[in-house]
């Protein structure tokens, strides 16, 4: 009748390290040090829905203190993957260890050690900012003294102290997201999961969320895993990125190393007037060019090992053939190029999932 007996931290049986961790029930969430420094271990994890495989044999580890990104288009399986790691979905095959706890066998211990920000906004709009934080803290068993201290500190960190007693429905989307980040940290977890943290936010809010995450990471001993389909977010925030496509792990390395692994570190985007039909082949013959991709409106995206050399060659070619160059820009490889290299598609091509019924927002909510 284990389902009837409430599980407590002492159930996981890791007695010695449990006793030594600071503040077993309070400020520190009572999470022991992970066995060999791996905050997260994902081992041949699979998720099948009947015949459809959403996540196919993915393995990776995340070291303590890292910011780790899962990058991929919508429908790639990132959300499924993170939901399995955060105990929201049962695992079909393989295993995931959070702070040394197997999420299938010891879910409550794993949950105690992690903070999760799901993709949907899950804070209660009828409650105030403080109530949201306080009730969540109670769900994690944070005692009253630590609760107060943590809430004060977190409101300061996410810059919502003035809004402490405001009802959540009066907050903007960006502010709600900040509230939820605070909520996820109220029990001082060691591992922090964020599922698409800036999707749907305006550019200013996105930057403020990034800055906040970096600040939080620097001031606490935290391991962060985020999923995203934004290249700039992954590039800017993450120490290492795993590229996920159609449920498979396609590449895994730091952003710099990934970009370096794509042959041709420079990208030239050039637009021409009256280009002939075989222009792509002509461009491919230039020195150091590794690939040429035609895009809309006579725009060509050229990957090359040496930007300046190819640029000179390109201009000379255009002058020789009498083709006018409308615009020209040289840039470094982006993660999108990395994605194209590994999957053959652009990260920008996203599929939109259809929903059969979407709950309308409650009236009075700000967008």
């Amino acid at each position, binding site marked *: 009748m284990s*389902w*009837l007996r409430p599980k407590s931290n002492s159930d996981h049986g890791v007695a010695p390290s449990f006793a030594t961790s600071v503040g077993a029930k309070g400020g520190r969430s009572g999470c022991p040090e992970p066995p060999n420094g791996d905050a997260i271990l994902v081992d041949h994890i699979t998720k099948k829905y009947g015949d459809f495989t959403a996540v196919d044999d993915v393995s990776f580890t995340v070291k303590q203190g890292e910011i780790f990104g899962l990058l991929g288009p919508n429908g790639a399986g990132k959300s499924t993957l993170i939901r399995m790691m955060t105990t*929201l979905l049962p695992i079909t095959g393989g295993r995931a260890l959070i702070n040394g706890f197997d999420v299938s066998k010891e879910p409550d*211990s794993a949950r105690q050690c992690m903070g999760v920000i799901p993709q949907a906004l*899950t804070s209660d709009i009828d409650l105030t900012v403080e*109530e949201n934080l306080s009730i969540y803290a109670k*769900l994690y068993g944070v005692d009253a003294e630590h609760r107060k201290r943590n809430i004060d500190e977190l409101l300061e960190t996410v810059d919502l102290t003035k809004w402490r007693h405001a009802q959540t429905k009066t907050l903007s989307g960006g502010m709600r997201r900040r509230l939820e980040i605070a909520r996820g940290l109220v029990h001082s977890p060691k591992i922090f999961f964020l599922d698409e943290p800036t999707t749907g936010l305006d550019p200013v809010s996105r930057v403020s969320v990034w800055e906040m995450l970096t600040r939080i990471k620097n001031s606490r001993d935290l391991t962060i895993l985020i999923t995203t389909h934004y290249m700039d977010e992954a590039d800017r925030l993450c120490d290492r990125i795993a590229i996920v496509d159609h449920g498979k792990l396609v590449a895994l390395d730091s952003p710099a190393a990934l970009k370096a692994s794509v042959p041709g570190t420079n990208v030239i985007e050039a637009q021409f007037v009256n280009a002939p039909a075989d222009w792509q082949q002509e461009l491919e013959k230039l020195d150091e060019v590794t690939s040429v991709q035609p895009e809309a409106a006579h725009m060509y995206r050229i990957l090359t090992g040496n930007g300046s050399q190819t640029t000179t060659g390109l201009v000379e070619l255009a002058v020789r053939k009498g083709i006018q160059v409308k615009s020209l820009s040289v840039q470094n490889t982006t993660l999108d190029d990395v994605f194209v290299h590994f999957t053959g598609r652009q990260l920008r091509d996203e599929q939109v999932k259809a929903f059969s*019924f979407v709950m309308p927002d409650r009236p009075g909510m700000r967008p």
Partner: protein
Amino acid sequence: MNRMWAIVERELRKFFRSPALMLVSMVFPLVQLIVLGNAFGGKIKEARLGVVDQDGGTQSVKVREALAAVEANAHTFYPVDYDSDQQAMEDVRNGRLDGAIVIPPEYSRRVYEENHPRIALIVDNTDNFMSSTLESEFSDLVKALNNPDVDPSRISQQITLDTVELYPYIEYMKYLLPGSIALAMFVSVMIGGGMLYIDDKARGVHEGYLVTPITKFELVAGLNIAGAIKAILAGIVITVLGALLSGLGTIFIPQNFLWVLLMILVTSLAFNTMMFLMMVRVEDPLVPRATFGVLNTLLFFPSGAIYPIKAFPSWLRWIAYIDPFSYSVHGLKALLLKDAGFVAIRGDLAFLTISAAVMITVATMLFKRTL
């Protein structure tokens, strides 16, 4: 168990921030109480009765005097003179008259000759209430015309029937009150119970709670306790308001009020766990809204709140036997209308408590801890 109380706290804070929801869940049973109470409990008044006097003799005058007496006192009907019985029958048929009485020719002579005198009563028997009222009025009238002036109960050889009424006269609205209190709790549970969690699920809000270490039992118990508290509040408000509206004073005796409170408490738990169990695997927010009306009818009307269970056909009786509503209504009737004590309601309390315990156990087992 602190986590369970955190869920209760969350639900109640949300509830008190939206008083509109509270009001709506109480208005419906109150309106039903007032409208049904007055729509059903009345007596027929001012029916139109056609009178065709084809005789015109002294005995027919007596009949007409009797009709005038009814018109003046009980106001059950008022007579309208007609010349032709065909016309009267036609008017009953097309609804211009509610009934017609025809005194045939030679009626007075037949009375004197003691030769089977008859009066015709024409009724529209598509309307059961109306026709049975008229029939019973006229049976009494004919009996009065027949009987001598001495009250038969004074004659020692006759068997007479003495009725002993145990309680003072209860108007229909008072009779309805126990059912309305149970209904108020049911409506509160529908709106504030199962539906809210399904809405949360549809918005993805429940994910925020599933990632915490809260156990299935704590989550289910917390949601059910919160729903029951809301239902208890609705029940108390309707009890007080309904008692004032229908003129029922029993609840204002402290001891009675405590028993009523206990009844309300176990009813709320039983209803909430029942609705929660029904909705435990439902994902679509339209389902509870679509089934609200069906469940209301299926559970409320067979409970005996409006009409006695003993009058039901056997298949409907079986619904009544397993329906928590029936036990709640029975217990509340005993407390409110009969001023009874613990002995009268202990069976109801037992059924409701045990069914609540069983349903919450099954609901916990069926509850999905993952998405």
